[in-house]
């Protein structure tokens, strides 16, 4: 048990036992003092928690621990992939490493993707990677998907009121999320109000450290395991005709640009990698839905034209995936992941200097 947790526990116990007032009655100034004290005490706890290295945990910490163990064992330059469930199911980093080494490129691939990770959460994932890894990655590839670019508070769809969600809403991030919601990054008034309310609630929970010491100290450490999550049985039936039509469809590349807030968040991520001496790239695993493929295809031609940008539009890849290799319309099973990973190794070999 952490020393700080014990101190806070003892302080709470002591105060709960001794605090009694000789008379009742509440005045406004008492409430003001009470509120200010909470804020001040929360700040003090936050400061010492940070000093003690106490942070909220998520499954990502287990993935990172696995990646760090591999980095310790293999001194090769690291190529990291940060994304969401698309990548968790599709990108076998151990296989990719073997393929790269087989092609004469001594690199270590690490998949650090977590399902439903919003752009803000990925920034936090990147920070933890850069803070904890024995060496900075040579290059970090960021997954690009339209729904994550469209929703600054995507995390509420997968993990409301969890450590994962609260951790993303430090005051600056809360402000940015509210700013992007005000700029229209939500569909309809009801959705905007709901998202803003949830953002404020999570921001408040973060500011008051709710659960911080429990989340960071008391619970067992995250299970060390690879981020790559191979699936062997589909979770939904993918109609063969729909699959074939979707994979064969070649819509025109997306012509617009990502929302401003998404570009700004990504720019911060790129800056963090570059400050650590690494390079950046973007990518997206294959999906049956053509519009999602068209999104990154368009961005590869415009916004990310100067970066290594890997879009899954290769007809040979898509035709190889036209079989029972889909977990659902958006995620690959193990066999499909092998196909994509091998294809990705070739693309990386071509894209990297």
């Amino acid at each position, binding site marked *: 048990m952490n020393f700080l947790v*014990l101190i806070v526990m003892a302080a709470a116990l002591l105060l709960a036992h001794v605090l009694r007032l000789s008379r009742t009655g509440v005045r406004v100034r008492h409430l003001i003092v009470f509120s200010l004290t909470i804020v001040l005490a929360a700040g003090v706890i936050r400061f010492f928690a940070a000093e003690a290295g106490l942070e909220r945990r998520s499954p990502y910490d287990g993935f990172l621990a696995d990646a760090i163990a591999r980095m310790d064992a293999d001194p090769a330059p690291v190529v990291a992939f940060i994304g969401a469930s698309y990548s968790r199911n599709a990108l076998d980093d151990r296989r990719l490493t073997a393929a790269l080494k087989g092609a004469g490129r001594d690199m270590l691939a690490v998949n650090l993707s977590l399902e439903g990770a919003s752009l803000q959460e990925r920034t936090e994932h990147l920070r933890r990677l850069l803070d904890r890894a024995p060496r900075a990655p040579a290059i970090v590839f960021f997954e690009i998907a339209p729904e994550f670019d469209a929703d600054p508070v995507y995390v509420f769809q997968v993990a409301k009121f969890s450590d994962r969600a609260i951790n993303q809403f430090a005051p600056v991030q809360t402000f940015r999320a509210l700013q992007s919601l005000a700029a229209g990054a939500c569909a309809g008034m009801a959705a905007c109000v709901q998202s803003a309310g949830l953002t404020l609630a999570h921001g408040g929970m973060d500011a008051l*450290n709710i659960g911080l010491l429990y989340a960071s100290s008391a619970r067992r450490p995250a299970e060390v395991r690879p981020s790559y999550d191979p699936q062997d049985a589909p979770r939904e039936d993918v109609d063969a005709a729909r699959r074939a039509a979707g994979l064969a469809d070649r819509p025109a590349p997306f012509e617009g640009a990502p929302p401003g807030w998404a570009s700004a968040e990504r720019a911060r991520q790129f800056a963090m990698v570059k400050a650590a001496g690494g390079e950046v790239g973007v990518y997206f695993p294959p999906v049956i839905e053509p519009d999602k493929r068209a999104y990154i295809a368009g961005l590869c031609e415009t916004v990310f034209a100067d970066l290594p940008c890997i879009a899954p539009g290769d007809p040979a890849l898509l035709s190889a995936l036209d079989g029972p290799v889909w977990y659902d319309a958006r995620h690959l099973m193990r066999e499909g992941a092998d196909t994509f990973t091998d294809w990705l190794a070739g693309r990386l070999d071509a894209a990297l200097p």
Partner: protein
Amino acid sequence: MIFTDAIFFAFLAVVFAAHWLLRGREVRLGVLLVASLVFYGWWNWKLLGLLGLVVVLSWLTAKLAAQRPAGDRVRRRILIAGIGGNLLVLAAFKYAGFFAESARAALAAFGIEAGWPLLNIILPMGISFYVFQAISYIVDVARGQLPAEQRLRRVALYIAFFPQLVAGPIVRAASFFPQMERDRRLTGALLASGARAFLLGLVYKAGIADHLAPFVDPIFGDARIVGDSAVSEATSLALIGATMAFGALIYFDFAGYSLMAIGVARWFGYYIPKNFDYPYSAISLQDFWRRWHISLSSWLRDYLYIPLGGNRGGAMKTSRNLMATMVLGGLWHGAAWTFVVWGAMHGAGLIVNRLFRRPLGWALGLILTQVFVLLTWVPFRAESFGDVLEVWWAFTGLRGGGTMGITPGIFAVAGIVALDALVGRKARRLKPLRDPLLYWIGLGVLVAAILALYPLEAAPFVYFQF
């Protein structure tokens, strides 16, 4: 819905507002009854019928018995039927599977295969508590300590009162019924005393107990999280640490629940007696049972031990009564032989305690009592007798093996337990603060500390399973 869930706070706010905004004693009692049924039904509404059965059975028993003169044979039969009916409900839902399985195992030992199917009966939350309250009502009426209540809703509220419905404290009918007849007013003192109990309970539960579970469950096993126990893989130090952590956990968890129940009840103007009085400062086993789960131990004393003969009739009979009471008390906690052993060990300990009354001195008494209590937590928590023996073996220092460790810092929990007893007992004599500013600053720090320690995934209270 448990006391540390966000939904409970919303529920409490609505019930509190409705209770105090509405006028009239009957209306307010109605609010509390409806709230109690919603609270229980939230967990499993289908089991409201069982709760209703216990209520109606107890109400009818007392009502019919009261129509007969004292000492009348029919009255006696009615009372026995009422108490027996309540015990039958408890036996059917809590012990049927256990006894069927034990009989099956006993027959198997003689090579006989039992033909009956495995029973998988859902254990209704709080059944042990509300059945004991129902029996308390019947017996109190039978003893003439309380008139039989004509209004079913009064009996329903007594048995189902939501603050203490699922895990006590077990409130005596003679203490609760008069409270329902009082006119009450919401005062600052009422709010403050409720808040004080509730906050201390919250610190116990969310601030301490929930932080200890991760040190206990991986060793002793927790089906919700890690499955089977890992006792054989753990180091001896880890087993001792986990046992100490469990001793602290069960105290802070259950005392925390009891304090929160007392606090919530107080906000509605009801007084529930305290359930714990720093049991880990007890200097004898008798002292321990005067401080641990007071509402149960006093219930067992008044409704079981004394009717069995108590300490009348010599040492042998007293020992028999003590052992019977403690074994049944152990079984009350759960349908497993490990609980029976736990109860029997305490029974034996109390018998020895009675036989050798010479004072041991404060320090020796404290050490012997607490070591005994700690060792008896092993059968209380362990999943099997094999695990029990292995953990006890670890305490001898002779057990090797095992690689699964535990954070050494967990031993600091002994300091938290000591601090609680020292400060808690002294605090009773402290004068309240005169300076409101100092009070509100302290309260601000306390709230900030609770929030930081607060578990986002609320763990159920340990005693809910009993």
